[in-house]
Each structure stands twice: as structure tokens, then as C-alpha cells.
């Protein structure tokens, strides 16, 4: 199972340090989510588009993701006449704010966080103080998602070959439950293997990361530009 859709590339953003990208991402996304000003939201949305163009990530995949995000957002537009009877303008403003916020943050995620490999992102979060246990669980979990997804695909194929079809009936739900039981049952063996591997490597309660890169010139350029932009946004607001 391929989890990192946007992580490969050779744009300016792909070569930035993960710690810089995550720091900028946190400031931008939280300010976007919390600001009440529509002007600021338009500017953040424009900034997210700029990042998308600079990162040169697959536009088709970005649009697919945004489609899913906007299905939830569309609901707030459809419901305006019910939520704001007689005050459609106010309702539309709120729905517009929700739309801009959700889309801008989704593009920030793809362009800033998505352009780094997951393991490097976790390593960056670790250097920001994420607890050791949590980062360890994170590393293992990501590793095992593909293993268990392969298990699941195998089970599903086997069911298909035996003539099982997913339909809305009691049997489908019971069989799905049993399949889930098999996945959980097998996961015990995976966790034993993992524990034994930890013992073999002399695990002492700390997960060291192999990714420790120093900040380069580009990182300073990017973080200064972002800082200036962020201050402008606070000032406009």
C-alpha cells in the first residue's frame, strides 16, 4: 500500500527541512482555522495555491483529495436555508469561511507535510518533543499498515474467489466481522515478532532517528518569507 503520494519530487519545497515545513505548517493552519477575517482567509488560500504550484505536486491527486474535503463542506452550503432562515447573506459568509479554511489547510497538508517522507516527519515531530513512546508506536504503526493491508487484500481476494459478494445483508456484516477477527488474531504474531526484534536490538526505551539534517540556506529563506507573511496576516486581521 503506497501511503506517501506526494513525497517524491525535486521542487524547492521537497528539499526543505521537515522541521521547518512542519513549524510553518502549524502556524499557518492554526491561524487559518481560527481567524474570523474573510480577507485573511482569501490570502491564506492564495498562499496555499502558491505553495501547491511551487511544490509541483500531482494536480489530479490534489483535486481528488479536495473533492472529498468539499463533499463535507458542500453540506454547509446546502443547509444554509435551514440554518439561517431569512439571513442567507450571513449564512453564505460563514459557509464561505468554512470552505476557504478547509481547502487552504488541506492544500497546506499536501504541499508542506505531504512532500516529506512520513518517517522524516515523525523524526521532526520527535525533535519538537513528541514523547518517545508515541513516536515509537508511530514508526511501528506505519511499518505495519502495509503488512496488514496486504493481509487484508489476500483475505478479500480469497473471499471473492469463493464466490462471496458484499451486499446489504446480515451475512455480509457477520462475515466482515469474522474477517476482522482473523486480522486481529494474526496481528498477535506480528506484535510478537516486533517485540522480539526490539529485544534483539537491545531496546532501551528510546527510538533514535537516522534523519538528522542541519538547516540550510533555503530553509532560512523559506522560514523568513513565511514569518513575514504570517506577521502581515496578523496585522491585516
Amino acid at each position, binding site marked *: 500500500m503506497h501511503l506517501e503520494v506526494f513525497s517524491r519530487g525535486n521542487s524547492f519545497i521537497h528539499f526543505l527541512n521537515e522541521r521547518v515545513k512542519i513549524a510553518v505548517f502549524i502556524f499557518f493552519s492554526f491561524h487559518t482555522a481560527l481567524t474570523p477575517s474573510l480577507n485573511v482567509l482569501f490570502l491564506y488560500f492564495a498562499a496555499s495555491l502558491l505553495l501547491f504550484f511551487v511544490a509541483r505536486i500531482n494536480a489530479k491527486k490534489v483535486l481528488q*483529495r479536495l473533492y472529498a474535503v468539499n463533499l463535507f463542506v458542500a453540506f454547509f452550503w446546502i443547509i444554509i436555508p435551514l440554518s439561517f432562515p431569512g439571513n442567507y447573506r450571513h449564512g453564505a459568509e460563514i459557509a464561505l469561511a*468554512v470552505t476557504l479554511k*478547509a481547502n487552504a*489547510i488541506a492544500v497546506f497538508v499536501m504541499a508542506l507535510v505531504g512532500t516529506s517522507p512520513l518517517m522524516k516527519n515523525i523524526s521532526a515531530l520527535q525533535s519538537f518533543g513528541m514523547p518517545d513512546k508515541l513516536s515509537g508506536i508511530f514508526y*511501528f504503526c506505519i511499518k505495519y*499498515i502495509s503488512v496488514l493491508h496486504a493481509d*487484508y487484500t489476500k483475505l478479500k481476494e480469497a473471499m471473492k474467489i469463493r464466490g462471496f459478494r458484499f451486499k446489504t445483508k446480515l451475512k455480509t456484516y457477520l462475515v466482515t466481522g469474522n474477517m476482522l477477527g482473523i486480522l486481529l488474531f494474526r496481528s498477535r504474531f506480528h506484535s510478537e515478532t516486533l517485540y522480539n526484534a526490539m529485544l534483539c536490538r537491545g531496546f532501551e526505551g528510546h527510538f533514535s532517528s537516522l534523519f538528522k539534517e542541519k538547516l540550510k540556506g533555503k530553509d532560512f529563506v523559506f522560514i523568513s518569507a513565511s514569518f513575514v507573511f504570517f506577521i502581515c496576516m496578523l496585522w491585516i486581521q
Partner: protein
Amino acid sequence: MHISDGVLSPAVLAVGTIIAASGVAVGLKKISYREMPTLAVLTSVFFVASLIHIPLGPAGAHLILNGLAGIILGWGIFPALFMGLLLQAMLFSHGGITTVGVNTLNMALPGFLCWKLFPLIKNKQAGGFIAGFGGVAGSVLMLWVSLGLSRQSFIPAATIIAAGHIPVAIAEGLVTAAAVVFLMKTSPELIGSCNAS
């Protein structure tokens, strides 16, 4: 089911995130290093399980399984679901990054209550159904509360979303009941395997 970015008010975001963070902290504290690989692998199982689509009449739904996760993980449900939701937001843009705390609380708290409730029910099949149904129903209720507290005008939208989840809760109850019966027969020690106390 996951709340996306930009919908919730700052107060709801702050309170939800603080409670969820405390839950994650307690969960991590209760998990020993011996149990850590188990929790990690089980988190991956629940992540993969959330990709399973089940048909529901003309539409479909993906499994949530917070009830089952609660029965199996106990306190571990907080870190497990936090991670699952963070990965979903980071990898698939499902849900939101700023709302990850509130979403974790909305999903994990009902699951956690299922863990407390499950041993009290004698018939494990019924217990599984109640956990599966209650997990989703509880989450939907919390989603309704978080949307309603953010803005009163969101209440009609929240009510429609909640009503739409009743069939999902029933399907989830049936799936969880079958999974619990399977686990009781094959590996009963897995139930509650990640709760040191």
C-alpha cells in the same frame, strides 16, 4: 464523521484538544514497553479496517470500529485513535489537522466507555453489538454536541449527519458482535490486551 478544519469554534477546539491530550497522556503512561508493539500493530489493524467499505443499501460506509477498539485497547484507545486520525488527516486529507484533538475525543471516549461496560454484559455477542452500536452512536452524539457548541446554526446540519449514521451504527454493531464472538473463541486474551490496570 470526522470534522474537517475550519468548522469548530476556538473554544471547542481548545477544550476538546486539552481533554484528548490528557487521554493520550494517560493512555501512554498505562502502556508498558512490553505492550507497545501490540498497541502499534493493533493500531495498524484498526487503520486498515477503517478502509473497509461495507454496503448499506444504495450507499456505503467505512468501518469506524471505535467500540471494538475500546474493548481491545482499553486506555490505549486514546493514543491509537489519535494516531489513526492524524495519519488519516496527513495522508488522505480525511478530517482535519486542527480538529484532530476533538475528533480523537469524539471517537475515543465512547470506545473507552464500551471497554468499561463490556465486562458487565454476560452475553458477549450482545456485548459486542452494544459496543459496536454504542461506539458509533456515542461518537455521533459527541459530533452533534461539538458542532452545536461551536455555532447554534450548525444544529440542523449536525442533526441530519447524526440521523444518517443510525444505519451505520447498526451495521457496525453486527460486525463488532461477529468479531467479538470470533475473538472469544480464538484468542480471548486479546480482549483488553493493552490496559495494564
